């Protein structure tokens, strides 16, 4: 049963926690966390079968945040799932914390792969999906890939392998927010059109507004019906979505807000 209002409430709390974490840490990636917030929330609270009982299982539905710098998003979502205490969120990026700048799978339940070095997560997701095919296990693997990240050649090695092995249990959600550290992705090194590239590599491609929960959930349902090939959802998103001064600003890639900016952001996120 879809309850969009509940998901929106969760997304709001997630965004607020991201602001608090990054402000407290004085560093971290807000922009790319906000662009993928609805994607992660819809996956963890509607699509994926992951809960306290199975979180430690080696084989279950899995999520690989290939754009690992959106770690504040992942930690905030895992907190909503009950795998992390809210108080722990404020240790993010600090000494002795389980919440590393980029996620470590051995420190936090529900982090299914250590990521951060761009381009690597998708290959790991391919390995997971392949494992479920080998062992006839009916689990699915989800990976959020950045559009800037798709400049990494390894993404395309992995994309080739996923199609070659007919991994229809693998779903990529491509967070197309259009910005990377140094600016507009099309000006830095244009990776577009990504949809045509994935199609050419043998993937089924779907399109959504990455902040529209209904569209995301519809696309996940369609992806489950696609057999014999992996699916990539091109999610058009807004970097920094939810806080007006941060929206569509490359400068908010990896910069923490000041206390005043954080306060203003939290006032907007209600």
């Amino acid at each position, binding site marked *: 049963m879809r309850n969009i209002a509940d998901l929106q409430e969760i997304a709001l709390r997630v965004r607020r926690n991201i602001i608090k974490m990054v402000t407290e840490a004085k560093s971290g990636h807000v922009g790319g966390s906000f662009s993928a917030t609805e994607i992660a929330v819809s996956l963890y609270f509607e699509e994926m079968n992951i809960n306290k009982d199975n979180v430690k299982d*080696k*084989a279950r539905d*899995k999520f*690989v945040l290939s754009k690992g710098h959106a770690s504040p998003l992942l930690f905030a979502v895992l907190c909503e799932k009950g795998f992390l205490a809210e108080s722990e969120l404020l240790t993010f990026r600090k000494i002795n914390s389980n919440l590393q700048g980029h996620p*470590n*799978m*051995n420190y936090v339940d529900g982090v*299914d*792969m*250590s990521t*951060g*070095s761009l*381009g*690597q*997560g*998708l*290959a*790991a*997701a*391919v*390995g*997971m*999906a*392949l*494992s*479920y095919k*080998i*062992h006839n296990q009916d689990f699915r693997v989800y990976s959020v890939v950045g559009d800037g990240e798709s400049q990494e*050649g*390894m993404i395309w*090695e*992995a994309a*080739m*392998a996923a199609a*070659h*092995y007919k991994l229809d249990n693998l779903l990529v959600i491509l967070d197309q927010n259009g910005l990377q550290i140094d600016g507009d992705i099309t000006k830095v090194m244009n990776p577009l059109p990504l949809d045509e590239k994935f199609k050419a590599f043998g993937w089924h491609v779907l399109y959504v507004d990455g902040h529209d929960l209904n569209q995301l959930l519809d696309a996940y349902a369609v992806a489950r019906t696609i057999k014999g090939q992996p699916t990539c959802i091109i999610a058009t998103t807004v970097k920094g979505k939810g806080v007006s001064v941060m929206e569509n600003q490359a400068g908010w890639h990896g910069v923490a807000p000041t206390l005043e900016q954080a306060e203003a952001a939290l006032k907007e996120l209600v």
Partner: protein
Amino acid sequence: MAKMATREAYGKALADLIVKNENIVVLDADLSKSTKTYDAKVVCPQRHFNVGIAECDMMGIAAGLATCGNIVYASSFAMFATGRAYEIVRNSIGYTHLNVKICATHAGITLGEDGASHQSIEDLSLMRGIPGMTVIQPVDDVETTQVIHAISELNGPFYVRLGRFAVDTINAPDYKWQVGKGVVLREGKDITVFATGVLVQQALVAYDVLKAEGVEITVVNIHTIKPIDEELIVRLAKKSKVIISAEEHSKYGGLSSAIAEVLAAKCPTLMEVVALNDTFGESGTPQLLLEKYGLTSKEIIAAVKKHI
């Protein structure tokens, strides 16, 4: 004396293992007939995957497979497994401490005719530097077989360095390999040679030559380069006036460095190093390359004679 390349023994051991353990998955990157993982493909095609010429992707896929409980053996030439794919090995396999066994063949200059572009002489250094990575170089087919079976039971990332060309079998069929334990092959007096890989056979030749001249050296097979056998190194250093290290690898970062680190901290002892002296290799037959680049019994004997 029987001869077999360690890669041949790897292929046979893996083919044996894969049918016994359904959690084993083998990956290769278009070199399966050279790395010999093809042997495993023949007996278990459903758990052997050729990812194409994409070593980075192979290591990433290996990591993903391992997170789901598989024991992954991933193979390519040492150059590509550790060089091309270094950062994926480091971050996706090392940092995660996943159960991936990187079994890399054609290591060192004895890869031969393909030349320096394919001859990995820095791989021990690269793999040794990754926290938690165990680094193994089996000396012959008997040891390789034991290593390949044993590491399936040892959790965590392993780097196994294998060779292309046939080498003498020096271990008896009933030999029992133990991770991290150097093997004293010849017990001599006050000069000790710690060798790894093809230099072990060279050190045994040196022993015979020197013994005929009335000089008895100690010869040790260091199959586990990390974690290195500190206890054995210190024990033998205490009775040795000089320690000689011998390896088919750059003198920077491999066996000589690992031994020097132990000696400097625990038992300062003079060292002689037989290794590649800050140089790339070139095309040629394995034997001629070993001779040209100074990796034979001759150099070990010369190092010994400097101290008698």
